[in-house]
């Protein structure tokens, strides 16, 4: 069967079971759009290509599927860089299909030509420039395979315009063969046995779980391990939801804005089982002081994550889910004794740390941002999919919304890209049309991709935006307050739009709360409206995020309120 490049692309997308694409057209991809129209694939027209990638990211993370975006050559694809870099840092499976000038013009500085394969080389897991229609199908299939396998990540496929128009014979269902790519899924059993021994002998063990647990769908196995060994669990920002936060064994989040007890545990634990993490500096603080009395076990599918930042006693390269399944079976054969009795001193110690309620705050005359997030948690019964912008809003979302399930907290963790939350919420809403999806936003970040309100309205996606409006780039202001003698240089957002009117201008609904007693009613009203809604909460201007570990300090050196 002879097909054009554009038609072949559609065939491969169908084979990969793609149901939604986030994109923005342009000259180089008109032929692709022309064919896309004829398929059942749902296309979400964004208003900026950065948002297309963040939306694909939100979709991928909510649904544990590969997200797909489609953008044109030149400025279309340069606009995607922040999105790609964010997905790369957070290991999100995305395929970016970009148009390119015709093959004959490549290298000529043609109109809207950029070397996007060169530009995205360091922020993709892999990328391709398709130079012949014969390679198109295999390359796109390979892209999907690479995106989702091993440590997932974004893959870019650059497709010159002439290739979308040419025709060739197409054979469906080709298989991907890659001789140089073989992720290690199965862990070394000897190493796992050693972990079993350590669990048996340790007195003060803790589990530190990260985004890898969610990516490998290993939450159930992790929860089983923790419960049957009675080991308390902390998670990184990326790992929120990997273990139920309402479980008594949960220590909450670790790191710069982690809970007092989670961070204190690291200083005296004698065994840390780290699963699907990469020991980011926002987690470890000063590395020499991190878990310095502990044996560290590190399970991860990416060997480069192991011993990159932190020395490890037992490295295990493998898929988190498979490794945990094996570990659980091994543990079943170990005589663990009376764990409650054995761990009593450890749990007593943790209970004592817990009494330093590091997340306490007082709701007085002005709305506290923490209060808004707590109310949102209550009203959504912890069931919403939460995306965030970046800054204080992101940390308050992480601290005050309790995540009991994976894939419900979607944030730009590694890159910390402002402007992530709204498009990511759009993507998550596309993945789950009936879910309550809320972007917890800051007044500055939301302005970085505010144009996506139009996308939400056009596509009928009832996302909710909760702006914690402090009139500042709050997180930067907080650093200036604490470490720069309150010199608030360029962090005051004096000239913000009226978000209620702005919502209305986009054809969405805008609501505002200025007093604590309005918080609940605005939230419950807003959540009920089956349309996109912006809820503007005018909060305490100079509220800080606490606990806070100053950059570079040991994570036990926390500033409390």
């Amino acid at each position, binding site marked *: 069967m002879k097909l054009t490049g554009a038609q072949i692309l559609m065939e491969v997308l169908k084979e990969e079971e793609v149901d939604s694409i986030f994109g923005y057209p342009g000259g180089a991809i008109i032929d692709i759009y022309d064919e896309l129209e004829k398929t059942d694939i749902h296309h979400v027209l964004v208003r900026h290509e950065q948002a297309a990638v963040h939306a694909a990211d939100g979709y991928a993370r909510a649904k544990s599927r590969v997200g797909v975006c489609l953008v044109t050559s030149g400025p279309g694809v340069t606009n995607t860089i922040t999105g790609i870099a964010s997905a790369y840092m957070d290991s999100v499976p995305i395929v970016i299909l970009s148009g390119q000038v015709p093959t004959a013009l490549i290298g000529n500085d043609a109109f809207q030509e950029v070397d996007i*394969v*060169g530009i995205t*080389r*360091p922020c993709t*897991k*892999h990328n391709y*420039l398709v130079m012949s229609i014969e390679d198109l199908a295999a390359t796109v299939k390979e892209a999907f395979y*690479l995106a989702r396998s091993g440590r997932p990540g974004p893959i870019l496929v650059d497709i010159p315009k002439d290739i979308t128009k040419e025709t060739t014979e197409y054979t469906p269902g080709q298989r991907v063969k*890659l*001789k*140089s*790519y073989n992720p290690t899924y199965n862990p070394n059993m000897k190493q796992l046995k050693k972990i079993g021994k350590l669990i048996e002998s340790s007195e003060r063990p803790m589990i530190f779980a990260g985004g890898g647990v969610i990516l490998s769908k290993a939450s159930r196995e992790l929860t089983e391990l923790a419960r049957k060994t009675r080991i308390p669990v902390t998670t990184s920002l990326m790992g929120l939801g990997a273990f139920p936060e309402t479980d008594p064994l949960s220590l909450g989040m670790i790191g710069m804005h982690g809970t007092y007890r989670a961070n204190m545990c690291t200083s005296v634990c004698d065994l840390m089982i780290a699963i699907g993490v990469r020991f980011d500096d926002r987690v470890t603080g000063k590395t020499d002081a991190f878990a310095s009395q502990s044996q560290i076990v590190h399970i991860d599918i*990416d*060997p*480069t994550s192991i*011993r*990159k930042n932190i020395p490890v006693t037992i490295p295990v390269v493998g898929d988190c889910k498979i490794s945990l399944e094996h570990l659980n079976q091994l543990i079943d054969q170990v005589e663990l004794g009376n764990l409650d009795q054995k761990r009593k001193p450890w749990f007593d110690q943790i209970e004592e740390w817990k009494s330093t309620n590091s997340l306490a705050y007082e709701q007085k005359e002005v709305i506290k941002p923490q209060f808004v997030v707590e109310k949102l948690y209550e009203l959504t019964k912890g069931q919403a999919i939460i995306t965030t912008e970046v800054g204080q809003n992101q940390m308050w979302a992480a601290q005050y919304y309790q995540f009991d399930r994976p894939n419900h907290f979607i944030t730009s963790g590694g890159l910390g890209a402002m402007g992530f939350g709204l498009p990511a919420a759009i993507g998550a809403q596309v993945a789950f049309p009936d879910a309550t999806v809320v972007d917890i936003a800051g007044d500055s970040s939301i302005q970085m991709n505010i144009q996506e309100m139009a996308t939400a309205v056009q596509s009928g996606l009832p996302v909710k935006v909760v702006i914690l409006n402090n009139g500042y780039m709050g997180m930067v202001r907080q650093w200036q307050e604490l470490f720069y003698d309150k010199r608030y240089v360029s962090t005051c957002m004096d000239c913000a739009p009226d978000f209620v009117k702005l919502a209305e201008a986009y054809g969405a609904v805008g609501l505002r709360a200025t007093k604590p007693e309005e918080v609940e009613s605005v939230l419950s009203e807003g959540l009920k409206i089956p349309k996109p809604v912006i809820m503007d909460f005018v909060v305490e201007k100079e509220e800080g995020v606490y606990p806070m570990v100053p950059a570079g300090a040991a994570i036990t050196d926390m500033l409390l309120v």
Partner: protein
Amino acid sequence: MKEQKHIMTMLVDNQPGVLSRVVGLFSGKGFNIESLCVAPTMDARVSRITIVTMANPPVIEQIEKQLRKLINVIKLRDMTGPRAVKREMVLICVRAKPEFRAEILRIVDIFRCKVVDVGTEHYIIEVTGDEGKLTALINLLAPMGIEKIARSGALALYREPK
């Protein structure tokens, strides 16, 4: 921790852009490259890249892991140590005043290298060897005045079992 010199060779897909992935990894992650050689192998679809780098042991471990992670790297081997044969070729343009010519030729003879170009005032010497030999030769020729030098960078092959 002490930095050590390591020589690594890898087989990679012989495709456009693969070298820049390897080199980009080194520059992007702040790893050092002392020398680098690339050429196709007997299989035209595969090239061999040889890189000499200086780093402490944990960084060497990272370099190896990061290289292996590249999709186009098929196989990687650390060739440091006696189990691999290492060679480098150098072209040396040395000043050859009449009174030094005999001395230079004697050195060339002892080191079993070749004079490949003779001018009124210079010789170009071609020499192949391991690092020790090359350094010794360069040190001996330096007092006469080395005008230009071109080094190929090191190559290495694992010794086959005897």
